[in-house]
């Protein structure tokens, strides 16, 4: 067995790599692609921790008397390289959002919370907010008309029943706790939007006859993602408009009142 005694070189190297990881965190907190991993509301936390980690790494690199072995150094170096590789890949992706910076206000405050189309007023809402609203059962709110943005999911079974699903990924803290949230919807004039396309759907909730007492959680077989599709209500569409894929497709915020996060 080859025994490599811990020495100062490895200790300094691993501390510098740690500082590098801290700097990566700091950069990540300002990155436009932060949302791909974490809920943007945690930018400040990632940035602050990154700064502190970088400082700890630099101080440890300069501290006398530290020793370390190669294993820890190699693992930390590999982690830093994966982070940098991911960072480059993420930055090279087209169509990412421009709502960057750790301390910027969200876009929702800057847009109107309602829109009028064909003589009807629709409240802008996201699928997770509508899901919570439906679960709470507030009748006054359930009777309102809403517009939401979602991706279309079609299956032969759903299509046979004259329905398609509207889904969007809801992220609470990070990608690991992401849940697909959605509703079944009815097409307008029998026209089904293409599978996987992004749509803005105008319509209202409609109580399903013989609907199960509670919504059913479904686990998506294709993505292994937990999904929650509301089974009590259908989203009866008045209008389905194709839209460009959202720059930030995940839902990070669930507001109980207007203006909704949309």
């Amino acid at each position, binding site marked *: 067995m080859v*025994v490599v005694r811990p020495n100062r070189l490895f200790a300094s190297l691993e501390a510098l790599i740690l500082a590098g990881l801290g700097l990566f965190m700091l950069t990540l907190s300002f990155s436009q692609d932060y949302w791909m991993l*974490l809920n943007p509301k945690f930018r400040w936390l*990632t940035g602050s921790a990154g700064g502190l980690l970088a400082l700890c790494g630099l*101080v440890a690199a300069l501290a006398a*008397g530290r020793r370390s072995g190669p294993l820890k150094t190699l693992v930390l170096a590999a982690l830093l390289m994966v982070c940098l590789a991911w960072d480059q890949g993420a930055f090279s992706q087209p169509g990412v959002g421009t709502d960057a910076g750790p301390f910027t206000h969200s876009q929702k405050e800057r847009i109107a919370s309602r829109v009028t189309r064909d003589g009807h007023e629709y409240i802008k809402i996201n699928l997770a907010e509508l899901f919570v609203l439906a679960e709470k059962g507030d009748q006054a709110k359930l009777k309102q008309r809403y517009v939401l943005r979602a991706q279309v999911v079609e299956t032969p079974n759903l299509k046979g029943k004259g329905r398609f699903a509207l889904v969007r990924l809801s992220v609470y803290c990070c*990608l*690991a706790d992401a849940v697909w949230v959605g509703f079944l919807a009815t097409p307008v004039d029998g026209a089904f939007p293409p599978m996987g396309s992004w749509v803005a759907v105008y319509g209202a909730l409609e109580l399903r006859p013989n609907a199960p007492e509670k919504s059913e959680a479904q686990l998506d077989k294709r993505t*292994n993602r937990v999904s929650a599709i509301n089974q009590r209500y259908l989203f009866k569409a008045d209008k389905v408009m194709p839209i460009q894929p959202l720059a930030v497709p995940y839902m990070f915020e669930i507001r109980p009142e207007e203006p909704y996060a949309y």
Partner: protein
Amino acid sequence: MHEPAQLDLFFSLVLALFWEAAPFLLLGSLVGAVVECYLSREFLARHLPQGRVGAVFLGLGAGMILPTCECGVVPVVRRLLDKGVPPTTALTYMLAAPVINPVVLISTYVAFQGQLSMLLGRVVLVAITAGAVGFYFSRRSIADIVRPTAPLPGQAQIQPLGVMLPAEPHPAGCECGCGHDHTTGQKGIKQVLVRTAEEFMHMSLYLLAGALAAAASKAFLPVSVLTAVQDNLLLSVVALMALAVLLSVCSEADAFVAASFLGFPPAAQLSFIALGPMLDLKLLAMFGGAFRKRVVLVLAVLPTVLVFVLSIVWGWLWW
């Protein structure tokens, strides 16, 4: 649907899990370093309760007023044990703190839309389990619990590369090459930062191992099989407990994930949010970096059994 390809998803999940946990691990390392540098054994010996029941309640109380995420609590507890805090208090605190703190309680309340039964059920299950685990270790010495590589006064250390080295604190520049603590008893911001860096580097390796395992579970395992058992109380509890261990979701977010399992019985949802913060793949790896194998085994088995039994009882009594 908008989602990375499977391998990209795996790497994204690893990074998401690691960078989500990293600030909390850093905070835990910082608190541990402050404990190491500023909290004396004598002070703790004077002020900590001697009885086992008092030690359990101290651990639970500390969990409420010193909220620590599950990723950050392990280094804190390791340092507390190093300082002579009784295992009963330290381990009760370790398991309870990620759940019975105000932030997590509020998130649970919000996620379950004001269902007090879920909130109280979570607190009671975790408090009983954490207390029982603490009680189990009440007769054990600290040396029986902490892994030898963690510095323990008077004990030889086994380095990862198989080199046996002395562990008595000794001055810097000794050329012993042991790589461990030369700074015990030294104070100052610089020492705190160095100790924080060392603790973070040590525990981050285990966090990374846990994140890899959890990401692999999430990206590649067919979890759709779980829907088949959602109508059976016993099997659904087992299924969501297994999912809690595999997914390794943060305790502040797990209630929202559990609340999305609407087709599952509340007892199964409760088991998910009770077990996850005490035992998941990330934590298992970190336990392995801090504690002896036998302790890790108990930390895996005892909470699992207790949460299962208590969830079933809770399910029969209230639903």
